[in-house]
């Protein structure tokens, strides 16, 4: 956190990021901006919906709010969340579904947003880490993470929280065992090795919310 001249780390990245990205983008890599089918001879297409390669609208519910985005088919949900909607709580780490830092809940199910296309969530409900707190108050799970020191560098934390949130939602009213939590976070890589504290936090939160 920075209070120097009102500059924040995120604000600084946002300011330079867009210009840097566009400058570094080869012209051929920029997607066309039409949603039309380019005289595509791909054939039959009776009754099929087709869109792209340019942006096309997709509507879904994000943390309880209806959203419609214009996004190209090749854009991942992760990229759309971070770069278009500026929901940067969901982290990019491996970008290949191997680390879990980008975990979000899609219709209540924990998924890698980096391996999901933005258009895959049409009509679905998406929950990200930004949706956990409400009215400026951290959720029971988030408070338990703090109490149990369940984060160090923090890079896995938002994904870790979402996998754990998914577990709490699907196991509501049931007794949770250590193994249940370990199984639920088996897709979330923590290079700091904070797993024992995460498990303790979730077991604590499960008691608190039961």
């Amino acid at each position: 956190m920075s209070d120097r001249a009102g500059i924040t780390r995120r604000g600084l990245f946002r300011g330079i990021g867009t210009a840097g990205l566009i400058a570094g983008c080869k012209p051929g890599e920029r997607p066309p901006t039409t949603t039309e089918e380019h005289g595509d001879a791909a054939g039959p297409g009776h009754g099929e919906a087709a869109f792209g390669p340019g942006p096309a609208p997709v509507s879904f519910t994000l943390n309880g709010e209806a959203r419609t985005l214009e996004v190209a088919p090749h854009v991942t949900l992760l990229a759309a969340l971070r770069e278009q909607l500026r929901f940067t709580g969901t982290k990019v780490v491996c970008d290949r579904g191997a680390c879990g830092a980008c975990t979000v809940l899609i219709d209540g199910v924990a998924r890698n947003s980096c391996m999901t296309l933005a258009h895959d969530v049409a009509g679905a409900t998406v929950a990200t880490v930004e949706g956990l707190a409400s009215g400026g108050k951290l959720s029971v799970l988030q408070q338990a993470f703090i109490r149990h020191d369940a984060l160090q560098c923090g890079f896995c934390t938002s994904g870790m929280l979402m996998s754990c949130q998914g577990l709490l939602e699907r196991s509501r009213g049931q007794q949770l065992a250590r193994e249940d939590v370990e199984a639920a976070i088996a897709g979330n890589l923590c290079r700091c090795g904070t797993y024992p504290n995460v498990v303790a936090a979730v077991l604590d939160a499960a008691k608190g919310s039961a």
Partner: protein
Amino acid sequence: MQPFVLSRPKTLVDAGDLARARPQDSALRAGGIDLIDRMKEGLDAPARLIELRWLGEADREVMRALGPDGEGVQIGALVTLAQLAAHEGLGEAHVALREAAGSAATPTIRNAATLGGNLLQRPRCWYFRHADLVCLKKGGSACLAVGGENKFHAILGGGPSFIVHPSTLACALTALDAQVEIRGPEPRTLALAELFVTPKQDAKREHALQPGEVLVRALLPKPSPGQRSGYAAVKEKQSHDWPLAEAAVRMSLESGVMKDVRVALGHVAPIPWRSREAEAVLEGKPASEALFAEAAKAALAGAKPLRDNAYKIPLTQGLLREVLHRVAGVPLPE
């Protein structure tokens, strides 16, 4: 990832027609885990993805089926690994498949990855996965694993390519004698073994589907009375990892005598590897520690390790023995 057109046909017939119209630059997409991975790595750049998850109700129902089919079991190609791992309709007779599904990848990947995609994914060989390398599978003249780093490569059935088949479900389904139903211009049902292509047949591919053909279901036959099964894998990491070796076993026990024995090994060969040698040792005999050791030895007798993967021979033997002990209910030796 290169931009592409996303198509959402309503019927399997339309999906097949679309795929056949431009076979070189279209790809069918189910869960899309391996496909998106390859596209991000620059290995594939289809101009059109044809989505199977948005089919109309009739076809979607077939592809999402999970449950009894006559006296056997049907599993739709769009069933996720997580659904499969949690499916209580797969009892002791078919539990190998649940164990395999629940062990693959990570929980979040299993929530997206499908049966069809798991069977038809491309190999994990690091030379194949490197966009800048032209290996045998990509039209080059040699399998780069032969003179390179080959710790994770094939010890059985290798040559000219030494990939190991990446599908965890295929190992269990081979032991369970599964068939796969294919829709296309000529609908057909194949024994699982006929789905896979050996590198000697065609080093560039791993499955026999033609453009426009869609794998819609896997079918497990009616189990024998008293059928039981099991699957296990050894990995360097318990999660987030591909197996070093896998073993799956099916058998029926009648007064301690093993019948209808099937033995499958995974991640040791370019195809899911059925070991008829091990089956021949076990079939019709009383289950015992000594016999399991003999079967494991027979299963690996033909192994031809490369420079870095001879460790897979004792590893796979030990794993197969462990699964046999567990499935037959014979206590492991101390």
